[in-house]
């Protein structure tokens, strides 16, 4: 019988963990359940950035908000500009950066852009890979750390990957194993 997590019991500002990498089935299951509960409101901060290589950076940044909210272009432009301001992106480089393809960027740039995309998305849940968090805690600039800190205070964080649990609480589970009851409770 598979575990059913009680995401509704998770509190903003708390960090929960799963000792499975994002690509593994247990993490995929957790992520799918979260996406079902909060469609379009789950941001994902992956080690490699998680950007799509055949889309320009601009399209990557707006994609989740554009897809789920069908937000207008002027609204999205404003949100991207505000998010870039929060991570103190270089003004003179912004136009070139927005027009570039992710494959031409460094790993640090991709990780920063993943945070920018999450800021644009204004999520209610954050899913973070352990490696991305290690980068943030280490060499990432202070603006990225502050932006992530502010985001993490507003919503629960689910940390994925080996070494997640020592830094986080275990995800709360439903006491019952009845799937229908779990789904009903989650919906409440």
């Amino acid at each position: 019988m598979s575990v059913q997590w009680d995401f509704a019991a998770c509190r903003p500002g708390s960090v929960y963990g799963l000792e499975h990498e994002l690509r593994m089935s247990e993490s995929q299951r957790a992520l799918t359940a979260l996406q079902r509960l909060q469609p379009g409101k789950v941001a994902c901060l992956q080690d490699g950035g998680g950007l799509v290589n055949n889309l320009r950076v601009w399209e990557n940044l707006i994609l989740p908000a554009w897809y789920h909210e069908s937000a207008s272009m002027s609204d999205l432009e404003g949100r991207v500009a505000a998010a870039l301001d929060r991570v103190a992106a270089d003004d003179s480089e912004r136009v070139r950066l927005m027009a570039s393809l992710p494959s031409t960027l460094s790993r640090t740039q991709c990780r920063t852009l993943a945070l920018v995309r999450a800021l644009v998305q204004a999520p209610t849940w954050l899913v973070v890979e352990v490696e991305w968090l290690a980068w943030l805690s280490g060499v990432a600039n202070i603006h990225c750390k502050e932006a992530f800190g502010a985001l993490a205070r507003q919503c629960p964080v689910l940390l994925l990957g080996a070494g997640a649990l020592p830094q986080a609480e275990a995800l709360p589970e439903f006491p019952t194993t009845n799937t229908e009851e779990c789904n009903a409770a989650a919906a409440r």
Partner: protein
Amino acid sequence: MFPKLFALLPLLGQLRRPPVRRVVLKQLYFTGNQAAWIMLLIGVALGGIVLLLLHGQYGQSREASMRLLATLSFRDISPLLAALVLIARSSSAVASELAAMRVHGELDSLAAIGIPVSAYIVMPRIIGVGVSSALLSFYLAGASLIGGALVSSGWEISYQVQRIDQVLQFGLVLECLGKSLLFGLAAAALACFSGLRAAPYVTEIPKASSSAVVRGLLAVFFIDLVWVLLS
């Protein structure tokens, strides 16, 4: 495979989302627009060849040759030829693109931000390639009539243009569009299938591409055979 294809039908509702419509338009541009000039050139050459054979070698009159050209081109040759060009250009491109996305974990990344691969990647490509196939086939068939008229009448082509209603019926145009739409949908579905089924290794990308071409060719020829048997 085919139940999966039918499972895509409810996904048509996803066309209300602007990013999905954008992918459809991009696919129309790359498959339909960029190949248009190739189809026009092939069409003119095809029309000239068929008319020269019918008139010069088989002794048909110019009017009879033009009528035969219209029937052959709109009903049989153009949908098939357009599908072959489309499979060579686009099926391989779609399959290798999807296989590369799989290798780089981009499909998982899309799923992680709540964007279904079937709605954002597969369905827009199938629609884009299907519609492009119908348009390209129509261009090809139309250009073949121009090529035939040029060979038949030379500079007096306006005479043939005025008589176009006598050689081309609306039913032929509909058959051309329907048949090529079906070819395009099948080729695109198989290209997506080949790309998404690829194992996540770089060496699988060219294999997915060639597999999409082979599967597409087989599908198109067998659909054409069934169409001819049923019609």
